[in-house]
């Protein structure tokens, strides 16, 4: 399984903080994205935001990133700490 996390404004927009996806449905980050918007049409508007950042195992990566079972994936808006 792949663990998927959403943070901040995105978490509120999707009304979801965390879910799991079978690795067969998400061999790359791009595929995971496609899978999520397919399963949740209402999420597409928010997940298609070009500014969103994606991390795999807590490192920011590109959408071409290959995924494997046990990965922790996170989607979140640009950061605003400090």
């Amino acid at each position, binding site marked *: 399984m792949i663990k998927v996390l959403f*943070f901040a404004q995105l978490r509120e927009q999707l009304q979801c903080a965390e879910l799991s996806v079978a690795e067969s449905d998400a061999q790359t980050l791009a595929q995971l994205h496609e899978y999520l918007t397919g399963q949740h049409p209402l999420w597409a508007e928010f997940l298609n935001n070009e500014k969103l950042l994606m*991390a795999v195992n*807590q*490192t920011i990566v590109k959408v071409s990133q290959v995924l494997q079972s046990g990965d922790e994936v*996170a989607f979140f*808006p640009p*950061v605003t700490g*400090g």
Partner: protein
Amino acid sequence: MISIQQNDFNVGDEYAALVANDTAAGAVVTFVGRVRDLNLAREVQGLQLEHYPGMTEKSLQEIVAQAQSRWKILRWRIIHRIGNLYLGDNIVFVGVSSAHREDAFHSAEFLMDYLKTRAPFWKKELTADGSVWLDSQEKDQQAMQRWE
């Protein structure tokens, strides 16, 4: 050392720890970020600070490693508060000691610029009109790009 915590910090104590028993430290720079009353012309009453546990610490460690490869740093300290913070509250502490002031000033500013654009924290502002997630600012991206 990196601390992500709800509790406040004490600048005097942090300064003391940065220099204790270290006669090589000729220069110490500290930065404190605080909740201020006006942000982009909105009247702010407070902030809610969310973070990505685990990734926060990891990204800050990477930022510190980069700073250490660019400047001679003796000791450093990063504290970032999370949860609900109100007007005038401390948000973030960055402290660096070095033999020379250039290293201390530039590494502290670098750490803040990177923290602002790379570390997974998000601020929700509480104003009289309700709460609103803060947008990232172009000027922070530009500040970060100076170092590249």
